[in-house]
């Protein structure tokens, strides 16, 4: 009997574990190690953050679901990987530290045959002074990265709306809290949902809403922007976004690295090196992501973290990490199997894999501060990668070491994104976009590197309904309810 350990129970980890358990059956063991007791459908956190959904609407307990699926479950965080085992045993193992109330702080060594690192990101609030400490959110801003954060954000938003109702003007600053952030899409959704809620409350005239981000143009989204077919015409995401911001009366600051947050004030550096400040009454700034800080040791106990992980803490996989400068970047630099090049029984999925380079054109300020979005690996790509990795490991277990590994390159994968711009059955809006491929392939599609036949978008009420339906579909799928395998990633 082989044991597969999946570190992390987010979109990628949950997908890997549930499919592996289904395909392997009871003849092999699948174990999930995740510090959280609940699964969270993160894309809907933005609705929790405006008070339209509750925390319970976007989460569920993992234990009963894993019990039903025959998956072993440990509520713990991984601390260190020992891929060569230790003195007296060649069996690789992972050191975990329990996080459940009953066992908090206890450590344990768990042996594995195959390991998937799907730990997701460390929310690196500490990278920006004042934004937080380590992975903990600070006191000056709010966040929608977790359901708890989002609940807190909704509470703070309500206070601001109450103030506006009593005649006060409030300043809102939403966007990215560092020059190297990703996930502009979540901030994009949140700013428009806030605007929608404020307008619904009848106090739009009392709100000054401003966007701040590390994108070099509005609509970059960490993918270098995209050109999509809208109503038969090809429209740039830049012009699409600018029109939307102008229509909703939202100002924007771009090319910004937020370098300090204080009470009611964010300081930032622009691409020309100039320093500025922006005041706010309410601010949601996405933190940069980093690896969760897993360590790795060889059999002799020597630290081999730098061999297994990239400097940003994400796990190295079968990518080309020596691609060089922007003009040399190729689609083939991106990983296909997500297998660690040093230890073939280790894989990474979702945000946890180290991308070979960013997707957008690299930018830095005259002071040398990098100011560009890092590549998005969330949502649909995470799920697809998780499933491909599960497939590969199942084949390795059942067919042997020579089994063909399944591939899911982001340079050959399309993605669909439905970005909410306001919740409401009759007055909601969302921008639905597809992009193909996620990572531009300049050789296959000369020019922007994408196929405009499969890259299109629309904004409207129908988009909101799709987003709403997707919420229920993915909650259903993640809970492994009947027909869950029929719902695509």
């Amino acid at each position: 009997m082989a044991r597969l350990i999946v570190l992390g129970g987010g979109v990628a980890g949950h997908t890997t574990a549930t499919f592996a358990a289904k395909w392997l059956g009871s003849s092999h063991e699948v174990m999930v190690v995740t510090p959280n007791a609940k699964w969270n459908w993160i894309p809907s956190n933005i609705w929790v953050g405006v008070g339209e959904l509750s925390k319970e609407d976007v989460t569920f307990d993992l234990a009963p679901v894993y019990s039903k699926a025959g998956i072993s479950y440990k509520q713990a965080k991984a601390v260190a990987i020992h891929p060569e085992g230790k003195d007296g045993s060649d069996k690789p193992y992972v050191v975990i530290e329990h996080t459940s109330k009953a066992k908090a702080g206890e450590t344990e060594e768990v042996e594995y045959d195959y390991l998937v690192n799907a730990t997701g990101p460390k929310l690196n609030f500490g990278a920006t002074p004042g934004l937080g400490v380590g992975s903990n959110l600070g006191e000056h801003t709010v966040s929608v990265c977790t359901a708890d954060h989002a609940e807190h954000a909704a509470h703070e938003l309500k206070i601001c709306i109450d103030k506006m109702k009593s005649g006060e003007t409030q300043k809102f600053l939403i966007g990215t809290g560092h020059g190297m952030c990703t996930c502009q899409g979540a901030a994009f959704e949140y700013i428009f949902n806030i605007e929608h809620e404020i307008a619904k409350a009848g106090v739009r005239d009392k709100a000054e809403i401003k966007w701040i981000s590390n994108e070099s143009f509005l609509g970059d989204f960490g993918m270098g922007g995209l050109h999509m077919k809208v109503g038969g015409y090809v429209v740039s995401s830049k012009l699409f976004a600018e029109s939307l911001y102008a229509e909703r009366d939202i100002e924007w600051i771009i090319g910004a690295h937020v370098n300090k947050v204080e009470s009611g004030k964010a300081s930032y550096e622009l691409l020309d090196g100039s320093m500025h400040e922006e005041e706010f009454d309410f601010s949601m700034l996405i933190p940069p992501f980093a690896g969760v800080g897993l360590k790795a040791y060889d059999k002799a106990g020597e630290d081999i973290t730098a061999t297994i992980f990239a400097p940003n803490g994400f796990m190295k996989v079968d990518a080309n990490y020596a691609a060089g400068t922007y003009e040399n970047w190729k689609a083939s630099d991106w990983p296909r199997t997500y297998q660690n090049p040093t230890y073939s029984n280790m894989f990474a999925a979702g945000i946890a894999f180290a991308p070979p380079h960013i997707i957008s054109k690299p930018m830095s300020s005259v002071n040398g501060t990098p100011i560009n979005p890092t590549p998005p690996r969330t949502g649909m790509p995470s799920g697809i990668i998780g499933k491909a990795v599960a497939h590969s490991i199942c084949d390795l277990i059942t067919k042997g070491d020579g089994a063909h590994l399944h591939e899911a390159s982001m340079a050959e994968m399309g993605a669909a994104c439905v970005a909410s711009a306001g919740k409401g059955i009759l007055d909601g809006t969302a921008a639905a976009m597809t992009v193909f491929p996620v990572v531009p392939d300049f050789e296959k599609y000369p020019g922007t590197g994408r196929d405009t036949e499969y890259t299109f978008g629309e904004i409207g009420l129908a988009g909101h309904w799709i987003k709403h339906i997707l919420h229920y579909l993915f909650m259903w799928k993640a809970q492994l309810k009947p027909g869950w395998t029929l719902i695509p990633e």
Partner: protein
Amino acid sequence: MIKDLIQYPQTPPIEFNAPVRFFNEDLFNLIDDLKDTMKEHNLNGLSAFQIGNPHSVIVVKDKDNNYIELINSRIFFKKEKITTNETTTYFPDINIDIIRDRHIKVMYEDREGSQKFLDASDEFAVLIQRKIDYNFGANFSIRLNDAKKEQLDMKLEHGIDVVIDNSCPTNFKRDKVLKVINILLAISLIAVFSKYFISDDAIVVLSEYLNNGFYLISSMIIFYTFFAYWEGSKYTNCMSCQIGNIIGTALFHFAKLIALITLKYFII
């Protein structure tokens, strides 16, 4: 080499421009072509898109008539909105009011690939904004709201200036009434079929509610007809076509209501 300028109604051979990745002889030739074309047509600025080239390259003339080559340009700072009356080579002889930024800061690369910055204000800033729009595959029409865009289309199609105060709006309040009517019709339809899932007692109550609902819907269609006529009368230039539209819409919704009543008669 002087290149042909793409003008309406000619469709650009490309849909948008891509970032320049290679700073080589091809790029230098493109920049020379842009300058030659600008000289020939006495232009202050030109985007590669306007001569059908798929790269993010712009050449503009500053106030001293020096050529500035902007490669992979981005506007990362803007201040103060202004309304400018613009024309462009793509739509010769058409002027349109557009809202732009008065002061901008642009980051770009020169022909060596070195990162540079440029502050621009007033006309020069507007010129750069227009050219960057082309870089992203759009002419100034992208900056217009739906009503103005419709007016531009009319002008291009018929050659007449229909930009007058009393032109038809694209959105009427009457459309909201129509929306409510459609929602009520949809709810009633679902209610008719819910007969198969409820008790006999509940069917009696449902039938009563549906009858009241039908009265309400028919009243709303009548209200819609008069309200729409009154609202449309404020826009004299488009009244004739509106009357046909209003009557047609009202009849169509009455037909839907009758069909629903018939369905209810046979099912419940």
